[in-house]
């Protein structure tokens, strides 16, 4: 089921690389469905604590967690903001997928519950324990893979009812991702400021 897929994924998949599509759908208003925006990119991670979201379309944005600092670089805005990972990472979806060393660490920040199989994936629902209340639930879907469960979907519902669904494809389990991918060097001329 979902819980043991998560446990196996967190234990056995120490690194990985995949393409993703992110569809963010705003909450509907007075009967009208919410508008949605689609972005695509690549996701890489090295457990524990290192990951990189490289958004390519329709605009370029990069999120890099180097183990200590979380960097956000927006190419068009020429802006880099950085924050301490342990301040922000705990109850974020990335913690589940890439940062937490093991399930016990996850259970510090989330209540984990099994969900029925759907769309050929094994599901877990993670409810953040933190009181900042930004996210309602994070559902994680695992696809069966030749080298163990593969991350298939991250379905994030925030407290306003906005939903962000990341679907992953071409998952390369335990991919040899160069460590340089998790080092962020601010480009020349970009404003680099702490948030």
């Amino acid at each position, binding site marked *: 089921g979902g819980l043991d897929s998560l446990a196996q994924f967190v234990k056995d998949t120490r690194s990985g690389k995949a393409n993703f599509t992110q569809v963010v759908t705003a909450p509907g208003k007075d009967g009208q469905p919410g508008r949605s925006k689609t972005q695509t990119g690549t996701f890489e991670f090295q457990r524990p604590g290192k990951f990189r*979201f490289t958004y390519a379309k329709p605009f370029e944005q990069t999120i890099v967690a180097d183990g200590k600092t979380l960097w956000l670089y*927006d190419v068009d*805005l020429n802006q880099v903001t950085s924050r301490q990972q342990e301040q922000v990472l705990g109850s974020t979806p990335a913690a589940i997928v890439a940062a937490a060393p093991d399930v016990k660490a996850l259970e510090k920040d989330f209540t984990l519950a099994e969900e029925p199989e759907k769309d050929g994936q094994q599901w877990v629902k993670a409810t953040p324990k933190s009181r*900042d209340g*930004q996210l309602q639930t994070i559902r994680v879907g695992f696809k069966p893979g030749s080298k163990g469960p593969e991350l298939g979907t991250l379905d994030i519902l925030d*407290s*306003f009812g906005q*939903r962000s669904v990341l679907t992953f494809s071409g998952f390369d389990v335990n991919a040899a991702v160069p460590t340089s991918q998790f080092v962020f060097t601010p480009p020349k001329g970009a404003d680099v*400021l*702490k948030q």
Partner: protein
Amino acid sequence: CATSTKGGASFDAETNRWSGRLALNVASEPPQSFSAGFELSGQPDKGELRLTSPLGNILGVMQWQPGQALLSQGEQVRQFDSVEALAAEVTGAPIPVRALFAWLRGQPEEVTGWQADLGQLPAGRLSAQRQMPLPTAELRIVLDR
């Protein structure tokens, strides 16, 4: 006629809605920076500014009308006496949110202390500097294409 709203065109005349990303840098000690996706809708005196993270969750919703400015974050709602005070709480500087409606349409509007550059709007870009009061601040906006 209204530009298509599919694919996140930056302006939807029907609902007077702009969407894109904004970055703010404040030359305070230590310097402060903020960046987020945004959606601005409504009118200068009655509107909404919604800020989202790169992963797509809403960081905060600012709503204002005469005599009231509300900030909703998670389950918390707080009241401010002006939309500028509200913007300062969220981003670090009192962004002239109401003037954005005019600026984004390419219409110059005076805001004391602020200098807006509307020349890049055809490319979907806007920047505005606050000279005073100190510390100086710079707002940069890129509209969705």
